[in-house]
């Protein structure tokens, strides 16, 4: 005999917490679609300059730009939730008798995020225009 609990099919609309949870979970759909877009770009790159410029033209289509902006918002929400749950998922860091506050760990990760952003964009532009 098995127990099957009743489930409201629209449970994720019932409270604010559930809605934000669902938005975080949905962020992965935008990640998968972008990964496939990048794979398509790599395939275009290997098949020659003409396919590459078609792929680039697709990235510049207004609808695709709007889609990209939506994807950035969803994936940034994943970033925010990931960074804020990290201190709760890892063992506490002790500096002598002083416990490193959770806030410091979250801020440290954001500092890492912006460092990666600046280094990546900076190196990319520098490499392409030197």
């Amino acid at each position, binding site marked *: 005999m098995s127990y099957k609990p009743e489930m409201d099919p629209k449970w994720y609309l019932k409270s604010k917490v559930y809605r934000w949870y669902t938005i975080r979970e949905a962020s992965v759909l935008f990640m998968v679609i972008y990964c496939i877009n990048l794979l398509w770009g790599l395939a275009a790159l290997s098949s020659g300059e003409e396919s590459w410029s078609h792929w680039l033209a697709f990235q510049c289509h207004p609808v695709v730009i709007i889609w990209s902006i939506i994807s950035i918002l969803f994936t940034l929400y994943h970033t925010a939730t*990931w960074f804020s749950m990290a201190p709760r998922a890892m063992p506490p860091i002790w500096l002598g008798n002083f416990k490193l506050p959770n806030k410091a760990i979250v801020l440290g990760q954001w500092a890492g995020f912006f460092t990666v952003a600046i280094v990546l*964009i900076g190196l990319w532009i520098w490499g392409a225009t030197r």
Partner: protein
Amino acid sequence: MKWKHNEPFFWMMFGAGGVVAAMVIPILILFVGVLFPLGIVPKETMDFLFIQQLVSNIFVKLLLIIIISFTAWHAFHRIVHGLHDLGFHLTTTKRAIGYGLALLITIACCYLTFII
């Protein structure tokens, strides 16, 4: 063998992918999907010969494989568990299809970066 014995591996990939996705994916989309199309960064950054030369570097290949495939493992772990949230009973077949798609993205990414 019970499925729970496999869980640590998928959990590890979920964690690794979560970090990569959090750190790099929004910036990557911003660059390729917004800054380049709007002409905010120079168009040479997406030049065919430049990108081809860039991707022929072994470290760039490895970086791309890590970014794309780890993100895929992260995403499909959440999709598989999301099926449970939507009321679908999780079976080994459903898990195998989910993680199989992540594996497919990994293989495709390795193949595509190494033929360039």
